[in-house]
């Protein structure tokens, strides 16, 4: 498969959450921490940083214009001996006047699905701009990467969670695989966003992320492959794991089945999507010219993002034309136009050929 690295590199830039949102996400934990420090409604942990960025912003696995920012709040360990509602109610009280520079005071909009956190919405010019999910956790030991306790209002119990531990493992796996793990996670999320109805809530972003993580961890994807080959392998690997009934995807740290709530109709739609996308790529898997390959990938990711920015393309063509007029090769092997005046070996005129 043609690797088309320029297209993939450019696409990964284009699908990043907007810079303003990334910058905001970076500063929000401090805003929340400073606010909580001034409140006496919530007892926070005294011996640890009180807030941490979590979720896809924390792990840098988000793509597109994400509006959710997840923040962990380390609360006093004594809460774990009480009904989960106690800490959640205290947190709601404490967040009531939370202000973010430029966005005013947030509005708490906690729904049933936020049974473990509080959802605070911020507006700009009357429109919802972003929201944060503030999650209270108790850290039983000294290691924030270890299993934490999270209150569950509906279960009336404290449950295990390991978001920071997973983040650390993901960073390690990503490093060991030439930073390709996070890239494939983002690209898989992009495919879901492009091909599944927005009203379809499942598979959740975190489920897909966990599945991609599992494939890398289990050695079913190779860091030596180009992103083009990897995405083709990845889609096929997920499809081959899909049976008639829902695909079980397990939490990367705790090993729990995450997808129990995946309804059959939703799951069927996901499998159909995989078949459709794999179908776009099959014709270019083993033989294709650049135009055909680019066209197929555009069906997968969208022409709006699978592109070489025209200035990049123009620059490359211009540089190649300048070399064709005469090239000099510097001592390091750097190839420059002869007209550049760089000292080196003048490359004699020649044409590449390639048949035996």
């Amino acid at each position, binding site marked *: *498969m*043609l*690797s*088309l*690295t*320029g*297209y993939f*590199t450019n696409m990964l830039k284009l699908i990043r959450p907007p810079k303003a949102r990334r910058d905001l996400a970076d500063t929000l934990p401090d805003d929340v921490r400073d606010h909580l420090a001034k409140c006496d409604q919530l007892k926070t942990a005294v011996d640890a940083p009180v807030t941490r960025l979590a979720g896809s912003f924390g792990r840098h696995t988000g793509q597109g214009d994400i509006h959710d920012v997840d923040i962990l709040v380390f609360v006093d360990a004594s809460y774990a001996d009480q009904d989960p509602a106690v800490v959640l109610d205290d947190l709601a009280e404490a967040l009531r006047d939370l202000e973010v520079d430029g966005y005013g005071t947030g509005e708490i909009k906690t729904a049933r699905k936020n049974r473990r956190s509080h959802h605070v919405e911020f507006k700009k010019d009357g429109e919802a701009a972003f929201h944060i999910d503030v999650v209270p956790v108790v850290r039983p030991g000294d290691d924030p990467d270890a299993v934490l306790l999270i209150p569950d209002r509906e279960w009336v119990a404290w449950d295990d969670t390991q978001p920071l531990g997973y983040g650390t493992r993901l960073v390690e796996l990503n490093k060991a695989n030439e930073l390709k793990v996070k890239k494939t996670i983002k690209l898989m999320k992009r495919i879901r966003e492009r091909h599944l109805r927005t009203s379809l809530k499942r598979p959740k972003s975190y489920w897909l992320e966990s599945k991609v993580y599992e494939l890398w961890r289990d050695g079913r994807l190779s860091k*030596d492959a*180009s992103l083009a080959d990897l995405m083709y392998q990845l889609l096929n690997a997920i499809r081959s794991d899909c049976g008639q009934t829902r695909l079980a995807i397990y939490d990367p740290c705790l090993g729990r089945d995450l997808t129990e709530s995946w309804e059959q109709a939703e799951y069927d739609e996901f499998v159909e999507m995989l078949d459709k996308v794999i179908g776009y790529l099959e014709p*270019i*898997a*083993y*033989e*294709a*010219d*650049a135009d055909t*390959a*680019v066209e197929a990938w555009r069906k997968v990711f969208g022409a709006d993002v699978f592109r*070489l920015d025209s200035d990049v*393309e123009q620059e*490359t*063509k211009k540089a*190649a034309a300048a*070399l*064709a007029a005469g*090239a000099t*090769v510097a*001592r*390091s*092997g*750097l*190839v420059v136009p002869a007209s550049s005046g760089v000292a*080196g*070996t*003048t*490359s*004699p*005129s*020649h*044409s*590449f*050929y*390639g*048949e*035996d």
Partner: protein
Amino acid sequence: MQRRFPTLHLVGRSPLAWQGDIEPSESGRAFTLHVEIRGGRAPRVLVLSPKLENDPQTGRPPHTFGDRSLCLYHVSEFIWTGKESVASTIVPWACEWCWYYEHWEETGRWLGPEFEHTAPKRRDTRFDDDRASRRSAA
């Protein structure tokens, strides 16, 4: 070779071989080249790293031979006689090849000068072991 391309080091005398890293573009990506001359054959250049990707249409990297050595010129333009300087022909062409390869990976298009494949082919002399000795005998 040392004067023109100090990063390529002599690694063998029989066959005569050089090896080392070059950085063909501003991106700073290094390519490890292996250049060797065996008997009277034309020099053979291999890219040891990075692992070269195949053109899906040919099943091998663009402008390479079946053994994945680089095809840097057409015999109608240049014939190796054993008297040419490797450092002023083969190596700069190999550096150029790497420059174009980098951009081929990005765009899927080979932007370098190419010899028309439809043109009549001349015999490939790379494996003509006795060529040099025949010339000297003549």
